[in-house]
């Protein structure tokens, strides 16, 4: 339980990731030597290295490290969310309890109490937050505050917590490459999808898919991203998860679509608040929520997919 199973395939996939990053770093420095303007790319790359190293540490030791570091990410995300939305002075107590739910939620993950993981945020915090606010007694904008605090908890604590949930689910058919295989599969696929949608959108993008939310998201980018994610999943799914290649292709396409939905949901929120990025903690990328927007859709959905079909 406390040990994280690291199989050959998992290790290979991490080496590949590091090889790609190293290659990109050399490429960027090479271009810099030729006096090309790669400053922004370098900043993004540097942040990307930091994220990858952070996650490598999170998954390399034991489950305690994983839980603690992911709880910390969840905390940073929630803090970012509460800092960008308007909050009332009267909400301070409720926000305090919202923050406290993070250690509790991740403790339940640590002891492997899956049912409590499912219930804490959607049920107990759903009841606690408005109750605490009602005791304070400020009724102006009550519903708005309840709803927005709970939305943040669902995104930053509940959905992100699913990254850890793979480790505590008792699959009857054992996962061939461990829970870590599935987690890495979902992380790689989500990042790859974001990247490919961007690349295809940038190269061929013409027809806006959601003109009101973001003019940069196009049908060309969406279709190119979804298809290439499906194709990479053809190989990655059997390599890291119990899925077969054909199933992997279909699931990859499904996850790419869900990742896209997560992306436009976060974009809509940003548009509503009138901001460009959710934060500044990841130079070149924006905030944490900018980075995990697709993951909040893909991680829970893939978890329930394999729980349903492989349990």
């Amino acid at each position, binding site marked *: 339980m406390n040990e994280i199973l690291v199989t050959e395939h998992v290790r290979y996939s991490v080496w590949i990731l590091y090889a790609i990053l190293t290659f990109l770093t050399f490429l960027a420095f090479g271009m810099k030597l030729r006096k090309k303007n790669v400053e922004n790319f370098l900043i993004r790359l540097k942040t990307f290295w930091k994220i990858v190293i952070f996650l490598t540490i999170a998954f390399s030791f034991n489950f305690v490290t994983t839980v603690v570091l992911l709880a910390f990410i969840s905390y940073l995300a929630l803090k970012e969310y509460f*800092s960008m939305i308007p909050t009332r002075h009267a909400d301070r107590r409720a926000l*305090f309890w919202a923050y406290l739910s993070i250690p509790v939620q991740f403790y339940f993950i640590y002891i492997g109490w899956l049912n409590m993981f499912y219930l804490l945020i959607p049920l107990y915090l759903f009841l606690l937050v408005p109750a605490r606010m009602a005791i304070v007694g400020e009724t102006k904008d009550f519903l708005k505050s309840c709803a927005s605090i709970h939305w943040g908890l669902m995104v930053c604590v509940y959905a992100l917590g699913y990254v850890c949930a793979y480790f505590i689910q008792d699959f009857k058919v054992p996962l061939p490459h461990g829970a870590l295989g599935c987690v890495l599969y979902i992380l790689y696929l989500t990042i790859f999808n974001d990247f490919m949608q961007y690349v295809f959108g940038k190269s061929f993008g013409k027809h806006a898919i959601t003109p009101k939310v973001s003019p940069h998201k196009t049908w060309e980018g969406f279709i190119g991203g979804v298809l290439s994610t499906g194709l990479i999943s053809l190989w990655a799914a059997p390599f890291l998860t119990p899925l077969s290649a054909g199933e992997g292709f279909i699931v990859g396409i499904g996850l790419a679509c869900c990742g896209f939905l997560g992306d436009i949901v976060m974009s809509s929120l940003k548009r509503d608040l009138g901001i460009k990025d959710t934060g500044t903690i990841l130079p070149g990328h924006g905030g944490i929520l900018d980075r995990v927007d697709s993951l909040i859709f893909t991680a829970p959905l893939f978890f329930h997919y394999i729980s349903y079909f492989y349990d």
Partner: protein
Amino acid sequence: MNISKYLFFAGIVRPFINLVMGVSVHGGEHLPLSGPAILVANHNSHLDTLVLMSLYSSAKIVHIHPMAAADYFCNTPFKRFIFQKLIGIIPLKRNPFLQMHQDIFMEAKKALKKKEILIIFPEGTRGNSSRLQDFKTGIAHLTQSFPKVPVIPIFIHGTEKSLPKNEGIFVPFITDVYIGKPLFHTKEDNKKWTLILQGNVKQLQEQFLKDHPALNA
């Protein structure tokens, strides 16, 4: 060098401000790397001082001194230890009688001559987040004898949400720090110059509101 101040900031304050709270800096290129300089900001929370000091590395923090009211921060031996030893404030005697008979900025002037960095909150006291209070002219009186010392206007948002006046519990919020271009004391009349300085901080506040239209400061 003040070892206890260094350890206090390296071990407790900076990790707390940077990891637990989080600071988002805009215009960091205007921050002077070495003294003498004066940082001027709006003041809504006790955290303001710690946030501004934590913009610097712990080694540099020992050269930064917030100016603070002696009657509030140095009225007991315990407070004197915390605020003078660990934070390194320069106490300011807010007594009108004293102000007539001696130079209350003597300590501050000494520090500027030693190339230290001062932090001054010209609103005088912690106020309301959405409204800047009128700046007191003390800062102009101090800088008129230092026309070459840069005065850096700063707007802080978020600390008053984390730890407002008269509130016991701390609730984490990311703090936004907007740093403006340095300003120098000109031959302007002190009252006028203070208004110019206040206008610069106000501009930074407007910039913040433009970047975050949903937060009505």
